[in-house]
Each structure stands twice: as structure tokens, then as C-alpha cells.
């Protein structure tokens, strides 16, 4: 590792364990190399020296076939199969989680040193110059500060748990090494994302995680649907990345630097709320909307559930999708001086939260429910960072990582069990459809308990973690509505304060719906009569410990996660740990938005009221769900009828995908094919101009050769015509 150490001016972290920070991303990358190598090596069957199938295909015939046989099972669309484990499964299942655990340990050591020292400036390590072009100097550099540390801990921590879970979950998949290779690579890029010291390096991770999500969603690529989903995810993300790129271009062409420190230093120079900074923030938010599945780019996330469930847990719940939130928090020095942009962020966040929650009401696929809930929770986070409560947003990011990962892994073990059961009886029922579940509580009690904990957390029932984070967001929103730079600004002529109150209402409503659909999910899955089918029941059982173990850890975290940042009025522990921790990074920006210590604005009483309201709403939601939903009346998916009216609209996610398809995708394709290619390219340019002109030449030539009739008389005539022409030319000058 070439370390051209540019002296970090006696930074407190200099010379401590923090100098190994570059190992954090590198360890997972190492895992990727090893696992990837194993995967390729085990799958490869080097071809004959002359590959022309005319002669050379007999020898490799057998092997190639063998592979396709093996993978045919893996290709079977769904998570789990009874074929013997991959021959290198052993070593892979050690390396895969190990590298992550290692980097988690390292991260924790660095974390402790960071706690011990008091650091106000980020710890920046430059390794080598990446793109040095004139005034544009982009280094491959790592920036370690409280914000990135928080992300690193979440990623490596939750990541490690999910890796361990995967060992059990993917054990018997033929693509086992490939799976871990991708997963390690993902973590590598995710860490690059959060550790990068400038926007381009962040962008490397940004696109890298997109790539890994593409590869993992399409992990069982033999199903067209999965491959499509992967592609969709990548392309939609690309649309967002386009915005991110433009934001970077604007930054460079106006500020001339792209590293966080430089931009932060230059940001105050920009006109407060000016067009430039607003544009930068809005373009950047387009990127966030793509990565974090906000309106209008959320469409890829539900499809992303095609990937293996642990992937959904890690990438599409805990880490990658929250990158957008991280980016806004990371760029707080920009957003805090662009109130209009911040309002847009908050508004979109609020809308998404509500909108996705309504979708969640009518999904039958257990993972789809969680997907829409993820979108909705991400909306919350954006409300948080949008209203300038960056800590609140990050706080919810963290707690969400805990309980949503738990929910996904729980659903994973449910599916695992369901699938095993169906596999035994050779049934082809859908193992993810809640209408085929029901009453699983008595078969898998641990999962049941843990998932209830997570559900209470996400529903916002005190004292579970979700309650604190969600409440801090709603509280911040309400209070910013009172007075803040945002309240003073206005969007589309609507005063900011009005909007903020509206957003607050959205948030509360979303909380209500969240409570409903989560409870619905729990009821249909674990309660009521079992609809799996009599034959299968006997095979339903709890997952092995390697899977339930991580669930337990996550369960604990999602219960006590709230203690990381207790609000002042609930003094059951140390107050505002996270606030203090993140203050060096986002504190200034927060205060700028809140106009210096907005806390004083509302009294404790108002805050108490807000809390009461939130809790009441959550409880009401759950109560309503319990009151209205009748699991007994459900019939298995195969017999159940199609929904009617608005329910169908909800079940089809408001037909947004179909709309995009009809309005954007098809027209583009048809125009490109018929007009651009057939019409302009083949028809006009090539046909008419190019080949046409040559045809014209040949035509003239043909005519000329016809005049050459062979009769001397004609020749004489032509000659004389020429004579007259020349005579005319010289005389009539």
C-alpha cells in the first residue's frame, strides 16, 4: 500500500490505530478476491485451443453440461434447494464473514480511539493522486470523522451479522462462492462510499454498490425476472447518478474543488439560498432519490426483492439505500444554505413515506411489504435531513438498520422454513406469499418473538428504538415549522412553515399506516390458522442457530437502539449521545438551519404533546389492524381472488411501473428503432445520401455507355456537336 503521507497537521488521530483505516475497505476486498477466485476457478472449464465448434467442442462437452446441470437447481428462482453444498463451501463460509468481522473489530478499535481523543476536524489520509488535471486535483483519499465512523460501524456490524446469517441461508446454493464474493465486494464499495474524502471517491463507492446490488439482485440470473430487476435497479440508479454528476460539475466549475473539506470551506462564500447552491443540492438530491428509492425513482426497490433475502436485508434495507441520507448529511454544509432545496428534500421524503406506506397495506408477498416499508422509512430519514435535523436522520438510519435488517432476516428464515416444507412435498406454491403462511408462531417461536420486537420498533412504540428516532424526526419537523430558515423560505409560493406542518402531518399519517401494515404482516404470518397445507406443516421448523443467532443480536439492538440518542425529556440514560458525537460534523449546519438553538423555541410541554400524539397514532394503528383483520378468513394464494377497486390499485403499486413502461421505455425504444435507426440511419443517411449518390454515378455511367451506340454516324454527330460547342465557347465569350 503506497502511502505518500501528506502530513496531516498533527491530527489527534495521527499515529494511532487510525492509520490502519485503509484496511477497513481493503479487508472485504481481499475477501472478494479470494471468493471470486474460488468461484471462477471452480466453475471454469478451459476450452480447447481451437474453439471453432466445427471441430473443437467434443472434449469440453461433458463438463459444460455438468455445470449447467448443477446450476439448473440454483436457477430455480427461489431461495433454497436440497442439493449438496458447493465443494469449496467450507473455506468460503470462513473467509466471507471473517474479513467483515475483522474490519468491524478494526473499526471498533478506531472508534474507541476516536472517543478517547477530542477531534473537531476530520482525519484525512491521502494515498495517491487519482485524477490530477490542472486545477482539478482529485486524490484517492480517506476521510474519517464521526459521521463516517457511525456509518462504518453500522455497515461492518450489521454486515457481519448478515454474512453469518447467509452462511446458513445460502449454504446449499451452487453459486455460494460467487454470492460471498459479491457480498464482500459490496461491503468494500460501501466502505469506500462512506470513507471517501471527496465527491468523486464517494461516487466510486456510490456506483460500486449499485453494481453489486445489480449483481446480487440478478444473482439467480437464469430467471428473466431477476435479471430484469437487476438491470432496472442499475439503470434507475444511473438516472440518479446523472444528477449527482451534474452536481459535481456545478461544484467544480463554480468552486473549483471537489473534496469535502474544500467545499465546506468554500460553502459560506456561496449566496445563501442562491440559485447555484439550490441547483447543486437539487441535482445531488436526484442522486439520493435514485439510490435511496425516493419518488419518483423508488420503483426499483420493490423489484429488488428478487435477490436473496440476506441481500435485501443488507443492501436494500440497512446500508446501500441509506447512502442518499448519508450524502445529504455529509453535504449538510451545502443543504443548510439552500432552504428551498432542503424543503424539497423534506417534502419528497414526506410524500414518499406516506405513499409507500399505502402500498404496503395491500402487498401479499412478505418481502414486498418490507420493501415498501423500507421506502417509507427512507422517506422519514429524508424528512429528517431535509428539515435540517441531520442527527435525527442519521439516528433513524441507524435504528432502521437494526430493526429492518431483523425484519428481513426474520422473513428470510420464514421463507427458509416455508421453502423447505414445500420442497419436501414438491409443491410449487409461492413460499413468500403470506396467504400461504399463518400460524407459524408455534413452529418458529424465536423468529416470532424477535420479529414482534422489530415490528414494535418500526411502529414507534416506546421504548423500542424506532420510537426515539422517529419521534426526534417528527419533533424536529414540527419545531422547524415554528421558526427556521426553512420556515422563512417558500416553495412554489407556499410558505415553508405551512409545508413543514404538512410534512409533519404526512409523517404522522405514515406512522399510522406503518403500524397497520406491520401488524397485518405479523398477524397473517404468525397468527391465525396455518394455511401452508397439511402435508407441509410437519416440515415447518425453526432455522439453525447460525441464522437465528444474528437475529437475536439484532433483536437486542432494535430494542435498546433508542438509548443511543435519548431526548432531553426522557432522561432514562445519557442524553443525546449521538447529537454530541455528530456535532463536529453536522452541528454547525443544524444550528444554521434552526437559527441557533431552536430547541428553546418550543417548550418541553409541546414536545411532550408531540410524543403523546405519535405514540397514540401508533397504538391506534395496531389496534385497528387487530380489530379489522381476520386471518381466519384468508385462503391460500392459489385460491384467493384478485383484489377489486382501490385495493387492486394498491396491490399494483398504483400502476406506476406500467405507466413508466408506456410513457418512457416503449416510446424511446420504438423511436430509436423505427425513426432513428431504420429511418434516419439506414434510410436517409446511408440509403439516400451514401448509396444513393453512388447509384446516381452508376446511372450516369450507364446512360453514357448507351450513347456509345457503336454507330460511326452517332460518333460523328457527337463530335460535331462538340465542335459547335467549342466554337460557340470561343466566339461568344
Amino acid at each position, binding site marked *: 500500500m503506497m502511502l505518500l503521507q501528506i502530513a496531516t497537521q498533527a491530527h489527534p488521530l495521527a499515529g494511532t490505530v487510525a492509520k490502519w483505516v485503509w484496511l477497513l475497505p481493503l479487508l472485504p476486498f481481499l475477501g472478494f478476491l479470494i471468493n471470486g477466485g474460488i468461484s471462477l476457478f471452480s466453475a471454469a472449464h478451459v476450452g480447447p485451443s481451437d474453439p471453432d465448434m466445427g471441430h473443437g467442442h467434443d472434449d469440453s462437452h461433458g463438463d459444460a453440461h455438468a455445470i449447467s446441470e448443477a446450476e439448473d437447481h440454483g436457477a430455480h428462482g427461489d431461495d433454497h434447494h436440497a442439493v449438496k453444498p458447493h465443494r469449496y463451501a467450507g473455506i468460503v463460509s470462513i473467509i466471507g464473514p471473517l474479513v467483515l468481522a475483522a474490519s468491524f473489530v478494526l473499526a471498533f478499535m478506531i472508534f474507541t480511539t476516536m472517543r478517547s481523543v477530542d477531534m473537531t476536524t476530520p482525519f484525512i489520509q491521502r494515498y495517491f493522486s487519482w485524477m490530477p488535471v490542472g486545477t482539478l486535483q482529485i486524490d484517492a483519499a480517506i476521510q474519517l470523522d464521526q459521521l463516517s465512523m457511525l456509518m462504518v460501524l453500522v455497515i461492518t456490524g450489521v454486515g457481519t451479522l448478515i454474512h453469518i446469517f447467509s452462511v446458513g441461508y445460502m449454504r446449499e446454493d451452487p453459486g455460494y462462492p460467487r454470492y460471498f464474493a459479491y457480498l464482500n465486494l459490496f461491503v468494500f464499495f460501501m466502505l469506500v462510499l462512506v470513507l471517501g474524502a471527496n465527491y468523486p471517491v464517494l461516487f466510486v463507492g456510490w456506483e460500486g454498490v449499485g453494481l453489486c446490488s445489480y449483481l446480487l439482485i440478478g444473482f439467480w440470473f437464469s430467471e428473466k425476472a431477476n435479471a430484469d430487476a437487476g438491470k432496472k435497479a442499475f439503470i434507475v440508479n444511473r438516472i440518479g447518478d446523472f444528477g449527482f454528476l451534474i452536481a459535481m460539475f456545478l461544484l467544480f466549475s463554480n468552486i473549483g474543488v471537489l473534496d469535502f473539506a474544500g467545499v465546506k470551506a468554500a460553502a459560506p462564500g456561496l449566496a445563501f439560498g442562491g440559485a447555484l447552491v439550490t441547483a447543486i443540492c437539487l441535482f445531488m438530491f436526484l442522486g439520493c432519490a435514485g439510490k435511496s428509492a425516493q419518488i419518483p425513482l423508488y420503483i426499483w426497490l420493490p423489484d429488488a426483492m428478487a435477490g436473496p433475502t440476506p441481500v435485501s436485508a443488507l443492501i436494500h434495507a440497512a446500508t446501500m439505500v441509506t447512502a442518499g441520507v448519508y450524502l445529504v448529511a455529509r453535504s449538510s454544509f451545502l443543504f443548510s444554505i439552500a432552504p428551498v432545496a432542503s424543503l424539497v428534500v423534506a417534502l419528497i421524503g414526506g410524500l414518499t413515506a406516506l405513499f409507500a406506506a399505502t402500498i404496503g397495506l395491500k402487498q401479499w408477498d412478505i418481502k414486498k411489504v418490507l420493501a415498501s416499508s423500507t421506502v417509507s422509512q427512507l422517506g422519514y430519514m429524508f424528512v429528517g435531513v431535509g428539515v435540517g435535523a441531520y442527527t435525527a436522520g442519521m439516528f433513524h438510519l441507524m435504528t432502521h438498520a437494526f430493526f429492518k435488517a431483523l425484519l428481513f432476516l426474520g422473513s428470510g428464515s420464514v421463507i427458509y422454513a416455508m421453502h423447505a416444507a414445500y420442497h419436501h412435498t414438491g409443491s410449487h406454491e409461492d413460499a413468500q406469499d403470506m396467504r400461504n403462511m399463518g400460524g407459524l408462531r408455534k413452529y418458529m417461536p424465536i423468529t416470532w418473538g424477535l420479529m414482534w420486537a422489530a415490528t414494535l420498533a418500526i411502529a414507534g412504540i416506546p421504548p423500542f428504538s424506532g420510537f426515539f428516532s422517529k419521534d426526534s424526526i417528527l419533533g424536529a419537523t414540527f419545531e422547524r415549522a415554528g421558526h427556521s430558515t426553512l420556515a422563512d423560505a417558500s416553495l412554489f409560493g407556499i410558505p415553508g412553515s405551512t409545508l413543514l406542518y404538512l410534512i409533519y402531518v404526512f409523517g404522522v399519517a405514515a406512522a399510522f399506516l406503518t403500524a397497520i401494515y406491520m401488524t397485518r404482516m405479523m398477524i397473517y404470518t404468525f397468527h391465525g390458522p396455518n394455511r401452508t397445507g397439511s402435508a407441509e406443516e410437519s416440515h415447518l421448523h425453526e432455522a439453525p442457530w447460525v441464522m437465528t443467532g444474528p437475529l437475536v443480536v439484532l433483536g437486542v439492538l432494535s430494542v435498546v437502539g433508542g438509548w443511543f440518542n435519548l431526548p432531553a425529556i426522557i432522561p432514562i440514560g445519557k442524553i443525546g449521545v449521538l447529537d454530541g458525537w455528530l456535532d463536529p460534523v453536522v452541528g454547525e449546519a443544524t444550528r444554521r438551519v434552526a437559527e441557533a438553538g431552536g430547541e428553546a423555541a418550543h417548550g418541553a410541554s409541546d414536545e411532550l404533546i408531540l410524543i403523546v400524539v405519535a405514540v397514540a397514532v401508533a397504538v391506534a394503528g395496531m389496534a385497528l389492524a387487530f380489530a379489522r383483520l381476520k386471518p381466519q378468513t384468508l385462503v391460500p394464494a392459489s385460491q384467493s381472488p384478485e383484489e377489486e377497486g382501490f385495493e387492486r390499485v394498491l396491490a399494483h403499486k398504483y400502476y406506476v411501473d406500467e405507466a413508466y413502461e408506456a410513457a418512457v421505455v416503449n416510446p424511446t425504444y420504438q423511436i430509436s428503432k423505427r425513426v432513428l435507426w431504420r429511418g434516419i440511419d439506414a434510410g436517409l443517411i446511408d440509403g439516400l445520401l451514401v448509396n444513393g449518390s453512388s447509384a446516381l454515378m452508376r446511372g450516369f455511367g450507364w446512360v453514357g*455507355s448507351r450513347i456509345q451506340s457503336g454507330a*460511326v454516324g*452517332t460518333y460523328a454527330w457527337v463530335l460535331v456537336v*462538340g465542335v459547335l460547342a467549342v466554337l460557340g*465557347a470561343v466566339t461568344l465569350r
Partner: protein
Amino acid sequence: MTFDLSVPSQLMAAFAPDMLLMGGAMILLLWAAWRPESEAHQRSVGVASIVLCVTVIIAIAFYIARGDSSLPGIIAVDNFRWTADIVFLIATIGTIALSMDYNAKEGITAGESHVLLLLATSGMMTLAAARDLMIVFLGIEIMSVAVYVLAGLNRRSEKSAEGALKYFLLGAFSTAFLLYGIALVYGATGTTNLTLIGTRVAQVGLSSNAMLVVGIAMLIIGFGFKVALAPFHMWAPDVYEGAPTPITAYMAAAVKAAAFAAFMRVWLEAFSGVTSSWHGPIWWLAVATMVVGNLIALSQKNIKRMLAYSSIAHAGYILVTIATSTTASTGAFMFYLIAYTLATFGAFGVIVALERDGASQLNIEDYAGLWTVRPWLASAMAVFMLALLGFPIFGGIGFFAKYWIIQSALQAPVPQTKLAIILVLTSVVSAGYYLYVVMVMFMRPRKEDALPFLRTGGWTKFVIGAAAILILILGVLPNSVVRWTQRSNNVVPVAAATPQITAVSNVSNPR
């Protein structure tokens, strides 16, 4: 030394190389007619003729080495003449070499054919030397009459006879125009001596004299026929197709070159003073010739015909040098003649090598897959085609030839940029048919029913090889030839005042 042509002995000396060729030809004619016709005899006469040509070249080299010149007179003694002569003689040697194999193939046993070539060549040399319209006329006729016969040499072939007839009738027809032109110019200026004409048209502003301009027009027509400018080109394709292949090469290269040499000299020495009166027609003729030749060549199936049209196109390119009307462009002119002669003889050599008796195997399609059976022949043909196309390196000297013409066009006192652009555009069109030949030879598979190719005769091999090698070598290092041809630009109107101007001026507009 400097010849004073008014002294008969010195005139003889100045004319010696031409006389040498003529005399030698006479003797060979007797010898050829003496012995009964036979293959062997035909060959020995051919060899003898080649020897004669070489001797004449040596003689000319001797003159060049001495750097002779002459006072104004009926003939010129300058590098322009010598360079042109050498081009003719090389072409003649090539023709004879090809004929010896070709005649054997076609069963032509008349040794006289070679002698006729020599006589025609002597006419050409006269043309190159001519500094008097009378000599020009004589040269043209000596050349033409011989070539009429050569065109119909293959008595058994009806096509050959037809070609000869067409050539003869139209040739005579155009000669009449040429002659009329000479008469009118004579009438306008009172002399047939180019130098005097030059001085007079320059001194008395005759540029708008009706008689003179009509005469010039008639001369354009006469020369235009000989060098096959559109629309006076109609005879060329038929005659080229009908004539025996070596003779076709001879006509395409040597005859054209000779007529052009005279054309150039007449224009530079006599009419460079009245550019305005002829520049327009020449310009348009050049354009028409380039366009017509290239376009019609696109739709040809027979390779000889295709090359006939391509030679018309090349006449157009060469005419550009005349259109620039500057002595500087004679270098480009001569250089082009050399390059074109080499390429033409190479190409026709390949045709002779592949042609079967009865003038079969002459369609371009017959060359399909040639590369797979005769790689070297195919490669050589490719070189010749690219040379005619004027492509760098692979086309060798052909590129420099075109390059120099363009340069002289752009460097002319009145830059001929438009002509240059039309020239390059039409050469792009020409790629359409030159590359077609290459494509057929290299990229089409050999037909199943294709007749086998005969083995190539030694002399033919010699011509093809020499042409290819020269083209390629000169295509990288043209300096020697460039320097040599640059020296042939000494064709300058000698401004010598003469007493009869008054007489001319009052006659030149008759009552």
C-alpha cells in the same frame, strides 16, 4: 552546342535521332518483308526493333548530356523533346515486347507489325520536335497512318477491322478540322512557325481576332480528338477494344502522349499570349473529360474498354496542366506521362498474360480468384490499378503524378483550385472501377468453370515486372525523375521581333 536550323547540315544534326529511327525502320522493313512470315522471324524482327529503339535512346541521351539547344526554327532542340522521345521509345519497346508474345498467341506472324510501330514512333518523335504547324501536321499523319494499320493488324478479327475503320474515318474527319485550324491560324498570323505565331499574337492583341480564335478552336478539336477528350472521345473505347491488346496499350500511352506533347508545345509557344481566348473551352473540356471518362468507366464489363475510358479520364487530368497555361506545369505534364505510361503498360501486360486466343478472357469477371492461382500477377495488377487511381505508396509513382498536377494547378498564376477539386472528386469516382478489379481478383472465389490461365510469356513477364518495380521504387524515391522532368520546362515562347507584323495586322481582319 546550339544548332542554327537555317543551316541544312545543322538541321539534319538536330533531327538526327528521328532520322536514325526512320532509316533503321526502313531497313528492318526490307528485312521483315524479305523472309517468309514465321513465328521465329516475327520474334527476331521484334528483337531487332527493340535494339534499334535502345540505340536511339542512347543517341538521345548523348544529346541530353551535351545539353544542346537551337535557334528558333522548324524544330526544337530541348529537354521537352528529349523527355517526350524517351517516353515514346520506352512505350514502343514495351509494345514490341508484348506484341512478340501476343502475336504468337494470336497467330500473327507478320514481322512488319513491329516495323510499323517504329514508323509510328518516328512520327511521334517528329511531333515532339515540331516547332512549326507544318511539322506538327506531318508528325500527326505519319503517326496516325501507321496506327490505323496497327489497329486493324489482326486481319482475322472482325472487331479489329471494325475498330480500325472507325478510327480511320473519324481520324481523317478530325484531321480535316485540325488542318482547317492550322489554315486559319496561318491566315490570322501569316506564319505556321510556332515561335513567330507566339510573338505576333502577343505583340498585336489578336486575342479577339475572329479568325485566330476559330483557328484555335479547330486546333483544340483536332488535338482533342487525338488525345480523346470528351466529346471527341467516342472512337477511343471501340478502337481500344478492337485493336490487338499491345497496340491498345501503345495507343493509350504513346499515341496519346505524342499528341499531348504537340498540344502542349503549340499551346505554350504559340498561344500562351492569348490565354483568355481558349482558357474557357479547355477548362470545360477538362471537366467534361474527367467526368465522362470516369462515370462511363464505372459501367464497363470488358477490361480493355474499362481502361479505354480510364485513359479518357487521364486525358482530362493531363489537360489540367495545359489549362494552367504555365511553363512550370510541363514538369507535371511530363511526369504524369511517365507515370501513366508505366502503369498502362503494366496493366495491359497483365491483360496480355491472361488473354486467351480469340480475344477471350477479357471480362473483369474472368479474373475472379486470380489471387489464389497467380498471386504475383494479381498483386502486380493491384499495383497498376492503384497507380492509375493515384494512391500513395501502393500506387507508387501514380500518386506523385496526380499530386504534381494538383500542385501546378494550385501554383498557377491564376490558381485552378476548382479544377483541382474536380480532379480529386473524379478520381474518387475512379476508385469505383479500379478497386472493382482488385476486388474481383482478390475477394471473389475462382469460378468452377473458369478456364485455366496460360503461362505468361517471358517478354510479358519482363514488361509487367519492370513496370511494377519502377512504379513502386519511384513511388518512394521519385527525386531523380522529378528533377529530370523539371528540366523539360524550357518550352518558352522565344520573343523575337519579326518584320511582317504590319502585313499581318492588316490582313488579320480581312475586308
